[in-house]
């Protein structure tokens, strides 16, 4: 069943590459993917933690337990839902190309497939492999159909992520090496149990911790490894920006939750510099994301860059949740992955549409769009308010959990200080988001913006899907937490 979910986009992509089918096939596959994911979602048994719907082959690697094995638990299920939702919207925002449209559509589906595979994988190797597989189509799409300095951006993201994933690979191997030969395995579930059993002495945890954190950090654009993100998203074609910033980027965080937390819990408390622990180091880095990048975001003068940087900034909150090392913070982080994915995807969808109308996204060229395109205005407003943490949207619920997590009893004073500082980021993000909203949608309509045409037909539903899901998550976070809680508790044990 899970394999089918994975095969849907791959097969469709293959068909498109071979020249069969057209845009409707892509849409069909996206919808099918969503339908299947929802089926999983409802058939999943929340009560018991651990993987379900597991499918495994024989070992592929003599002597080592490496096999194609897929399965879902609460966390991966949430991520899969995110993937499916964003994919649907992304497919509906595919640009109209006269030449080689199939190549475009297929590659987009491949990216989605890569994300799906990474979240499905119950095996460390495939978990890693699928993510990196998505690199190639991203490279092609950005360089071929991007805007602005697209080729430079494509190079930057590819090499940056390539290096990141090789560091990550080193970290993964180092992690395995830290284990006694007998218990070396690639099976995530087995690994998690080993982690719970504290197989690795605290002192030996710090090196793999660094390798993994840097590796994942690069993929998540953790400060100071963030400079690839904004330009790439700014110049990427809309669906790619949506999928990458919304879904693929979450892979790194997913990995942190899957591996680093359950596996190297003691590393966080290892002193790395004077009396400062690894956790403090991480906190400093994520404050870099929130405050430094936040201010950088304020200084942006173009909508796409602004959104790109903002998505980098919000990674900081997710890391804050991770760094809190407790259930509240972690649940917040995981829910925030979901929420941020949806909101940023919606923002990119709107900004992409505006780019198609206007050509430029410079704030001083735009204004008063709500007059001519009220629907876009509403969607943008909802997504923007969601991303700055307005109650009622999932982002707020998760950020609340993150902050409470950062302040929970047992938190170090350093951690509490960091949390308060991070709290100020909420003000920062409000500043840039409102400025952007005002610059684009409020004020006197410009000559051109008065002539724009609003979204119509099915695209409206595709776009509205995202903010509505966000509302659902904001009003009933318990519903999602029901899926997450058992898994995360297991991860923390």
């Amino acid at each position: 069943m899970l394999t089918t979910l994975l095969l849907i986009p791959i097969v469709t992509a293959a068909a498109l590459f071979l020249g069969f089918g057209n845009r409707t096939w892509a849409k069909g596959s996206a919808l099918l993917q969503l339908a299947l994911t929802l089926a999983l979602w409802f058939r999943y048994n929340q009560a018991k933690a651990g993987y379900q719907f597991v499918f495994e082959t024989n070992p592929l690697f003599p002597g080592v337990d490496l096999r194609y094995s897929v399965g879902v638990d609460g966390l991966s299920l949430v991520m899969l839902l995110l993937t499916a939702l964003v994919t649907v919207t992304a497919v509906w925002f595919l640009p109209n190309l006269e030449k080689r449209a199939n190549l475009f559509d297929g590659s987009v589906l491949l990216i989605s497939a890569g994300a799906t595979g990474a979240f499905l994988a119950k095996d460390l190797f495939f978990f890693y492999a699928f993510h990196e597989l998505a690199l190639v189509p991203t490279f092609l799409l950005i360089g071929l159909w991007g805007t602005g300095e697209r080729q430079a951006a494509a190079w930057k993201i590819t090499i940056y992520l390539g290096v990141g994933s090789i560091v990550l690979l080193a970290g993964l191997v180092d992690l395995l090496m830290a284990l006694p030969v007998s218990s070396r395995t690639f099976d995530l579930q087995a690994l998690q149990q080993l982690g719970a059993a504290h197989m690795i002495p605290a002192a030996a945890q710090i090196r793999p911790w660094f390798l993994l954190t840097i590796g994942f950090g690069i993929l998540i654009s953790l400060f100071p490894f963030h400079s690839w993100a904004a330009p790439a998203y700014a110049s990427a074609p809309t669906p790619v920006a949506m999928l990458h910033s919304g879904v693929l980027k979450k892979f790194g965080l997913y990995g942190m939750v899957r591996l680093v937390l359950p596996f190297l819990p003691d590393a966080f408390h290892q002193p790395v510099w004077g009396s400062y622990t690894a956790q403090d180091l991480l906190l400093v880095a994520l404050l870099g994301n929130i405050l430094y990048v936040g201010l950088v975001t304020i200084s942006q003068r173009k909508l796409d860059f602004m959104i790109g940087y903002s998505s980098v900034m919000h990674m900081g909150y997710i890391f804050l949740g991770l760094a809190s090392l407790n259930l509240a913070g972690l649940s917040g982080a995981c829910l925030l992955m979901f929420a941020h994915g949806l909101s940023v995807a919606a923002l990119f969808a709107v900004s992409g549409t505006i780019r198609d109308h206007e050509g430029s996204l410079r704030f001083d060229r735009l204004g008063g769009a709500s007059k001519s395109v009220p629907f876009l205005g509403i969607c943008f407003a909802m997504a923007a308010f969601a991303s700055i943490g307005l109650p009622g949207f999932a982002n707020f619920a998760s950020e609340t959990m993150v902050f409470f997590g950062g302040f929970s009893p047992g938190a170090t004073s350093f951690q509490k200080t960091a949390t308060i500082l991070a709290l100020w980021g909420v003000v920062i993000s409000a500043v840039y988001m409102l400025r952007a909203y005002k610059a684009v949608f409020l004020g006197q309509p410009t000559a051109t913006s008065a002539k724009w045409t609003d979204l119509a037909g099915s695209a409206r539903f595709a776009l509205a899907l995202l903010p509505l899901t966000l509302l659902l998550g904001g009003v009933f976070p318990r519903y999602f937490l029901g899926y997450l809680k058992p898994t995360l508790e297991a991860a923390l044990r």
Partner: protein
Amino acid sequence: MFPPISLEILVLALGFILLLAESFSNSTNKRGLAHIAIFCLGWIFAISFFTASAPATLAPGSYWNFYSGDGVSLVFKRIALLTTIAVLVLALDYESTLAKLLPSAHKGAGTGEFYILPLFTCTGLMLMASAVDLVMAFAALELVTISFYVLVAYARRSHASLEAGVKYLILGALSTGFIVYGITWIFGLTGETHFTKVAEKLAHLRGDDTAILFAFLLVLVGLGFKVAAVPFQSWVPDVYEGAPTPVTAFLSVGSKAASFLLFLRVLEPFLGVESILPKVLQVLAIVAGATLIFGNLAALPQNSLKRLLAYSSIGHAGYLLTAIACIGAGGSLLLGVGTTVGYYLFAYMLMTLLAFAVLTLVSVNSKGEEIQHFNGLSKRSPFLAFAMVVAMSSLAGVPLTAGFYGKFLVFAQIIQAHQWGLLALGVITVGAGFYYYFRVVAAMYWHDPLETTPITVAPLSKITISLLIASIFYFGINPNPVLSALRTSAPSVAAAAH
């Protein structure tokens, strides 16, 4: 079940038969020869699965004690056979270009040997894979080298080809000199030529290590030349660029693979000597690091794809040497060094052959082997473009392609040996690799073609290319067949690893 040696005999016989046929037949079209050769090699490849592995015995007077038909050698024989087949296919595509570069009255004349000589090379490669005696090793090595001299310089009208030939000739002979001298010293130290005996003797040798180190150095130099290790790599770019493309492919795959196996076998006795082990490993690490850096960084500014592949082959040699340099660290995460090298070479064969296959077709169809000749290939022939994407991704080490497992195993070795310096180099060079391999992808998809004539691919080549793509993906997901084949008796070097 057939004895392993039967493979060599069959190929050799095939070679002679075709040679005779070629010289006595008066048809000007030699393509038939190639087709026959490919067909027969295919059968021989099939036979290779019905050969009983027969490791060399040291029983006094046993005739085959210089020849070991162990599992690993069998794998390498298959690599050799497949490479040869692929090279012949390439040669067929290349014919039109080659014919122009031959001083011949009518088209196709003089191309015959071009299809036949690879068979002899193949024999040499297979023998190298099995050689466990210095004499045998030397003979096989020279068989390969000399036939390559001819092949490299085959296009007699092309200055490049000739220049490459001469360079390869002189430097090859130079390395031969060093190898021979090294062998001399080994013999002088031990009075033996069989690796196992040499190992025993060396292990119990008392006195000054300098002589042993000297002997080791000489062999390292000689074989380092064959596997393109810095600082003995300098011939590679020029020769690769000058040689006819199929020959380049053959050089970079066949010769490298066999030489590496031989390298491992020769290395083993020296690893047995405790007193010099640290020094040996240190030198290996230095050479490996230098090779990594040189190969991968010098590839960055290349514009000629052929030359780029040359540098990249140096880079891959770097990864392999790195793995070898990490021998000695006890306890293997994933299989031994021998298996790592074996699998890496197998994957390397697949992706390099694929790359060269595409390169051949493109160069034949667009008068050049620069990267810019790949511009807009996705428009001219989506199939070839896709094939190239697969090849390049695999070379760059993208997961789910065969190349990735290779990199994975190498990094495993590095970390296991705690060679953090090499790890850093590895990370840098992989990053660089992403750049120069993806440049080709970028050219094919981002840019507009120089000429828009679509490229037609002959059915045989199409089949070969498709098979290569398929196997790259297959082994990228499930490396088990190769790995277990190698493991059945991984070269005792792997054993030396713990």
